[in-house]
């Protein structure tokens, strides 16, 4: 007999409260409009739902295309066990971004208009198309996992043949829109606090998404290992951790050089809240994790690796909120802080995402897969050759 009443645990209670609160905010949003549910105004038209649900959501899903590029385009086979969890995270991430967009758009029922009314001069238009196409790509990348589950072998072998085309398309689409999320802000040079405005915003957005997306893989592997007892090889994760902080450090160096070239260095020594938030962002998001994970001993310690990944993700989050909210504040003259409804909807989205990941990872071969089988084969071959030698 299966148990139908789930056991009451602390996290289940918290998750239930979050979802109930989120549903109530959903009700307010769709009956009273954005005015009744958010702290947005004519002075501050973009808030948490753009800054977190869209910018952070898309950015943290970048692990999907990065790992795919490593394993399927650069054919570095040993990272293959990370591919499926990364694809699943990205797929769910994008679905949540689209779901979140439904709250933020004033007329969500017109979302499909981007398909029929074109404005190629608009960065938002490009982002809309990339997100649509890439979500389709992610679905196709996820499909083999489902096909395997239902043993649809013919389709599966067809998918494998076309796989590389899908993967390359996915990497290009991701490169385009990850950077374009930064390009969205290129058009407000006079509104943004200069610490965050730069002509290189698209590059920064791309680099930081690659770095933070990789640490999401670590974060998840750790959570899943706790949830499913399916440990992923620690060696792979610690290497991923090292690569991610190197990428992030590279991004920071480019940023500092750009400060120097555009005469903004003095801003780093101007003491105000903006400078403090900037330092917090680079310390938590890049400098401290870099200092930690560059040391072999520390990155091979599971807890430190996990802690560093949380730091990187927090720093990334802070960066996106700084670009989209903090930097706009002085020009608008308003202090925007998200309303309780904006926060509760965002928390609900995160909770739903984690819950969906858990359900799918339980029921589909996300962790245990043919990849493991292949690895077994490989080990077997190796042992054979060793014994022969």
């Amino acid at each position: 007999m299966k148990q139908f009443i789930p056991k009451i645990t602390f996290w289940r209670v918290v998750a239930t409260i979050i979802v109930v609160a989120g549903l109530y905010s959903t009700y307010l949003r769709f009956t009273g409009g954005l005015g009744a549910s958010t702290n947005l105004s004519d002075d501050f038209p973009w808030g948490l739902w753009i800054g977190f649900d869209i910018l952070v959501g898309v950015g943290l899903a970048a692990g999907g295309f990065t790992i795919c590029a490593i394993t399927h385009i650069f054919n570095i086979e040993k990272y293959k066990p990370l591919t499926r969890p990364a694809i699943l995270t990205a797929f769910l991430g994008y679905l949540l971004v689209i779901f979140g967009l439904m709250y933020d758009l004033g007329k969500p029922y017109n979302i499909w208009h981007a398909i029929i009314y074109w404005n190629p001069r608009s960065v938002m238009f490009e982002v809309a198309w990339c997100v649509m196409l890439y979500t389709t790509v992610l679905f196709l990348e996820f499909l083999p996992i489902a096909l395997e589950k239902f043993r649809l072998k013919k389709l599966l072998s067809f998918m494998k043949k076309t796989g590389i085309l899908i993967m390359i398309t996915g990497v290009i689409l991701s490169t385009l829109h990850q950077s374009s999320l930064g390009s969205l802000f290129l058009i407000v040079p006079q509104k943004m606090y200069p610490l965050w405005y730069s002509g290189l915003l698209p590059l920064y957005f791309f680099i930081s998404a690659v770095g933070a997306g990789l640490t999401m893989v670590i974060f998840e592997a750790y959570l899943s290992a706790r949830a499913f007892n399916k440990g992923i090889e620690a060696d792979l994760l610690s290497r991923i951790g090292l690569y991610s902080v190197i990428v992030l450090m590279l991004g920071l160096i480019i940023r500092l050089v750009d400060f120097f070239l555009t005469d903004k260095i003095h801003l780093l020594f101007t003491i105000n809240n903006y400078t403090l938030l900037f330092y917090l962002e680079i310390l938590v998001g890049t400098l401290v994790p870099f200092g930690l994970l560059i040391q072999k001993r520390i990155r091979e310690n599971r807890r430190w690796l996990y802690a560093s990944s949380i730091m990187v993700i927090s720093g990334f989050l802070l960066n996106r909120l700084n670009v989209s909210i903090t930097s706009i504040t002085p020009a608008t003259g308003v202090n925007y802080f998200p309303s309780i409804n904006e926060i509760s909807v965002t928390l609900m989205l995160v909770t739903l995402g984690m819950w969906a990941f858990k359900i799918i990872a339980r029921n589909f071969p996300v962790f245990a897969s043919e990849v493991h089988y292949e690895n077994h084969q490989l080990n077997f071959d190796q042992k054979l050759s060793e014994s022969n030698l």
Partner: protein
Amino acid sequence: MKKQKAILFDVTLCAGCGECYNACKEANHLPETADDFLKDHLSANTYTVVEEYGDVYTRKMCMHCVDPTCVSVCPVGAMEKTELGPVIYDADKCLGCRYCMQACPHHIPRYEWNKINPKVKKCIMCYERVKNGMQTTCAEACPTGATLFGDRDELIKIAQERLSSDPETYYQKIYGLEEAGGTNVLIISPVPFDQLGFAENLPKEALPTYTAKALEKIPGVVAGGGAFLAAMYWLTKRKNQIAAEEKQNKLNSISGDEK
């Protein structure tokens, strides 16, 4: 191309009577929003305001940019720069992303925050009237001639004449001549424009050129990226194959030796 229509507002002539404000409300069927029109501000129900700065008055409304930021950022083309000059809005296309509001350098578009089916609201330079050869309702209502309607190049000439014939009175600048690529609403004033709440830190080039620089790289990223990734795939695949074959050969030769 037709001649672009424009509005010239002369701060020195404005008496602060509010006739433009009232005429605008009436023409656009907008409800009353304030007891004292001088204390009102732009909103979903107010497309133009008269503001008091010391002993002078100025108007605020959509500037109808020559190369409008709102038109360039709208993903579905709901904002349109008409041939005649007015920037108009199509609520049926709009998704409500509010990028126009975020991006507008003059902080003009307003939103119906409390509606389920919200629209972006702003002055559309009485497009229907202008299309039929009439002037805007605010220009028609103005008793002192502070708000003039006409062809943009002619209004620029008038403004230049006023500035040069009376340099004592006028601050020597036409606001809107080159702000963010220029606007179809031009303003002349006795005081610097930042004292009247106008943005003085705008670049001279139109803001859409900033994003155009990023967007024009897309074809290169697609073509170059595609070629690079395909080449990497082929190379690394081949490398792995060779490694596997060599291993196989070794195995074969070993098993061959055993036989």
